[in-house]
């Protein structure tokens, strides 16, 4: 799956969690937390959605790898087939 498709899948998950936010101008290199009102509870939701939708497990020690869209794509890319 190409980067663009992976990016879209991640955005789709964030869109469902942050329903009241505008996601059209996200910067891939800036921390999601600094661009959106997402706290640790919401990151837990991202992790749980990944498991629910794609059976991708993210161990707690890897949570920092979900900080930016870029790092999400790098980290999760290989797990999407």
């Amino acid at each position: 799956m190409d980067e663009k498709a992976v990016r879209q899948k991640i955005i789709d998950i964030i869109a469902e969690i942050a329903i009241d936010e505008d996601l059209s101008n996200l910067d891939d290199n800036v921390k999601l937390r600094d661009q959106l009102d997402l706290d640790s509870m919401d990151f837990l939701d991202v992790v749980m959605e990944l498991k629910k939708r794609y059976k991708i497990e993210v161990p707690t020690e890897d949570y920092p790898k979900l900080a930016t869209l870029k790092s999400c794509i790098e980290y999760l890319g290989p797990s999407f087939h």
Partner: protein
Amino acid sequence: MNIYDTLIIGAGMSGLAAGIRLAMFDQKVCILERHKVPGGLNSYYERKGRKLDVGLHAMTNFARRGERGRPLTKLLKQLRIPYEKLELSQQNFSKILFPDNSISFSNDPQLLIEEIERNFPQQKDNFARLLKLVTDFDDVNLNNKQQSAKKKVREIISDERLLEMIFCPLLIYGSAWENDMDFSQFVIMFKSIYLEGFSRPKNGVRTIINLLLEKFTQLGGELRLGTGVKTIDVEKGAVAGVTLDSGEKIQSSRILSSIGLPETMSIVSEGRESAVVGNMSFTETILFFDKKPGDKEIKETIIFYNENDKYDYKRPQTLYDYRSAVICFPNNFVCDDYEEGIIRVTFIANSEKWNELDKKTYLQNKQEVRDKALALVARLFPEFQANLLYHDVFTPITITRFTGHFDGAVYGTTQKARDGRTGIKNLFICGTDQGFLGIVGAMLSGISMANLHCLMKGEKA
């Protein structure tokens, strides 16, 4: 036999919110509610075509759409309910009314700051310090140690009259303790009432309950109304399931109970030490008039009234204490849902005394509560001349009957289980006795306990 990942006892705000979280992540979850109507401490009923709310005077923790870091924004995000669905309508303003002073506040904290400066000029800087302390404090940290809020606030506010006024709304809108509260709870309440403020969803508490119900069932959650839990069955120190009033048994490896800590422990099959039952209960009189208070320029949304300089927030020696009251004007939000004028009057009450009455005296005393409420309204607003169309009074007895809270203790036990643990494996508490307060607090409690105990570690059982 059905086997569930999690059973939730009680379909109040916290139980429903917890249920949504679990159903969202594919747990098999069922909410068991003894009453025929969901809502718990914040519910509703209908009499003679009139819609009545119980519990909710106003929703605290007002936030604008998307406003960051606010508890309301957080919980809507966690429940994935769009902000617009609540159709929130803000308060006009509210007032703390003591013999020699009154302090108004609204959803703009600036009004409160100015009012305190006007009434207590010497406390201006102290109040600014209190504001800083409150804003910087991590009130929802589950590991906060219990400490007296009055003691801590007294170190900053040196005028007792102001201190009493600040505490008045915070105590009566959430404290299980008499004349004091835990400092974390003080901060939660201070932010939710003075810094965020009051609003009302269109059509009141029904709107919230219906939104929660709709979401929960859409996600595949099961709700059984009219289904009381007789015992929580514990085997070798761990939860095994429940036995219903009907004798039916349901298996589950995990239970989240929102019915109160002492109430939960009292139905655990293997005997356990119970928590203390709280002392604070109330009467409420709901009055319907042929005129609206606003027509007579009464614009306040809620008045916290007290006859003395000191606010006596404790179980009275008498059936009820009419020296202080909360007077709520549901018409006085920006949008008014009602055809008629409504005034709600709350007095602190003694549930034990109400319990001792026979049927006839009980009914007589309910009438007297109504008369005292009417007299108070007439005294504070002599210009409001209107005919009473309908009224209803609820008492500590009513509260116990419909919520199951022992002694009509609206704010539950004085010993909160902040981390939700009960000492029994896989039995957790959410709601009032976990210690987050108000409607928003209750929902956040359900969410955080579901996240912590049912989603993060165990995941699917």
